[in-house]
């Protein structure tokens, strides 16, 4: 049984940021990683994935992007390399190929059983990521035989798909990206769109992430938000990590020949049934986008930043006059379904009573229980808590708490 003060679970950006903050405070710790550093970036993302945030927005405690393309977007492998460099420069104490099997309470704090022996520590940081498991609706079980099913975690590229029609379910960042590349590869593609948020890549000449950062939107604190539960469920904007197109939205996909349908409501007797409310989902998306642009304009009015163009607004999402409400899945037209219906963390190895009625982790801005903390969850402390550029501030705040916790135990 090995002992340390703090056990950090996960060596992605969250775990490595926490490790750096703990090292800066001289706190003994270990980072347990089931694969290699930045495993999820290397091995559990699709080939063409790029960050939605530009390179300059890849800041971690004591580390930043120093290349010569600050406005470019990192591929998944570039992110993995960035994090491996970070771990090396931080001399992070990472134990690779050490999967956690259970976390339980111990008289000394917590006991962590792994593939390679047990650890005991007075505090634990859950940094295993917000996207470990793909969320798939229950009615997926009714999918007819002969249709291949993929999620954003196991899909890699259009080359792995059988010839034939593809139904992509979900129109946030994952859904629009996969629908576009699968369509470009020559497949017939249907995209089922429920709630989604349209956003331009750039506005008044500046990248949208520059606006989100400068106008303080990414730094909005959890305690400042009216309906935090709803805010934590907000899906990713319809963006892609490329400046080539202004919009990666339903209009663009429709122009490329993707058939847009409403939210997948049910699969009944081998038929996919879509909501008849697509027009309203599109109207709500346009309203959200315009409210965001209003916020940008109001900030620019107050601060008069240099080098921005005049305000503008964009034409609405063009909704088909009569979108189909059903699609036969048994006739052979559809060969593949891609679930782009969201992700969630995996805490199945956390054997403590810290979950709510629906299996969600209960926490107050990352504080789960005395000595037990989470990192990298959506809007955990601030709006950018789940983003690479946002996890550092949360890690620093929690490291201070971990230090206080350790002092209390020692006293």
């Amino acid at each position, binding site marked *: 049984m090995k002992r340390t003060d703090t056990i950090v679970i996960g060596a992605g950006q969250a775990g490595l940021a926490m490790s750096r903050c703990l090292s800066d405070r001289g706190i003994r710790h270990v980072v347990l990683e089931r694969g290699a550093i930045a495993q999820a970036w290397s091995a559990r993302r699709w080939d063409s994935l790029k960050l939605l945030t530009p390179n300059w927005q890849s800041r971690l405690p004591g580390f930043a992007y120093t290349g010569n393309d600050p406005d470019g977007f990192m591929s998944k492998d570039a992110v993995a390399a960035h994090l491996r460099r970070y771990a090396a420069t931080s001399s992070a104490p990472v134990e690779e190929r050490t999967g956690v099997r259970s976390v339980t309470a111990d008289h000394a704090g917590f006991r962590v059983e792994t593939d390679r022996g047990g650890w005991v520590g007075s505090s634990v940081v859950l940094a295993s990521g917000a996207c470990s498991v793909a969320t798939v609706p229950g009615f997926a079980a009714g999918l007819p035989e002969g249709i291949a099913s993929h999620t954003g975690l196991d899909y890699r590229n259009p080359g792995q798909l059988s010839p034939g029609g593809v139904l992509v379910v979900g129109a946030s960042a994952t859904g629009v990206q996969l629908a576009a590349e699968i369509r470009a590869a020559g497949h017939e593609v249907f995209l089922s769109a429920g709630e989604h948020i349209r956003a331009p890549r750039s506005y008044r000449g500046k990248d949208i992430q520059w606006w989100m950062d400068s106008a303080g939107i990414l730094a909005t604190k959890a305690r400042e938000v009216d309906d935090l539960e709803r805010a934590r469920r907000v899906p990713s904007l319809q963006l892609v990590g490329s400046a080539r197109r202004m919009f990666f939205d339903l209009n663009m996909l429709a122009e490329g020949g993707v058939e847009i349908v409403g939210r997948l409501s049910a699969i009944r007797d081998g038929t996919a049934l879509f909501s008849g409310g697509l027009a309203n989902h599109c109207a*709500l998306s346009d*309203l959200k986008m315009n409210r965001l642009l209003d916020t940008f304009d109001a900030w620019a009015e107050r601060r008069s930043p240099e080098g921005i163009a005049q305000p503008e607004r964009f034409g609405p999402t063009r909704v088909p006059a*009569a979108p189909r409400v059903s699609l036969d899945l048994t006739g052979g037209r559809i060969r593949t379904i891609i679930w782009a219906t969201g992700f969630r963390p995996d805490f199945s190895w956390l054997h403590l009573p810290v979950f709510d009625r629906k299996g969600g982790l209960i926490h107050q801005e990352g504080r789960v229980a005395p000595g037990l903390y989470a990192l990298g969850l959506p809007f955990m402390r601030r709006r950018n808590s789940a983003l690479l550029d946002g996890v550092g501030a949360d890690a620093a705040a929690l490291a201070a708490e971990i230090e206080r916790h350790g002092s209390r135990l020692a006293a």
Partner: protein
Amino acid sequence: MHTNTMSQAVSNGVNTEALIGARGAFEHMPEAAAFTFRSVCDWKEGTHNSNAINGYFGLGQNHERKQTFRIDSDHPEVFAAADRAPTPPEIVLAALASCLTGGVAAVAQHRGIQLRSVQATVEGEIDVRGILGMDPDIRNGFSAIRVSFDIDADATDDEIRALVAQSQKRSAVFDILTNPTNVNVTVV
């Protein structure tokens, strides 16, 4: 022009404080949020029948109202009937218009927008060969439903559009019509 000063209370007649209070109660007792609504329909003659709506279950118990509401239904003259009351599909359209209109009032109250008038016109397209069983490719029900809102309020056009969008988002009847719903019919 939209003004929303603290000194000028907006009144559309919706008690949003009560709704927000209810949310708090349901967080702690979700069972209390399980409601059952019902209607008892008695055949009169021909295609004329009459619904009596009174008792419902909710907040953990049965409720009986002070008065029983009635909704009658019939078929029109062009269907060779006596036209004593609206057709069931028309009542469904009315239900949608009512649910959305009520929702607009509630959302407007919550957002501090004073309404002056709201009128919803709803239309449903139906090929009656469907209900006559003449063609399996023609459905029994509406192939399309359109709702048009005419709203006069103390708000911008965008704010009014947002009211209508939010009303749909939280409407029971909009959901019932746009998403599949299990309907189980038995005989005693």
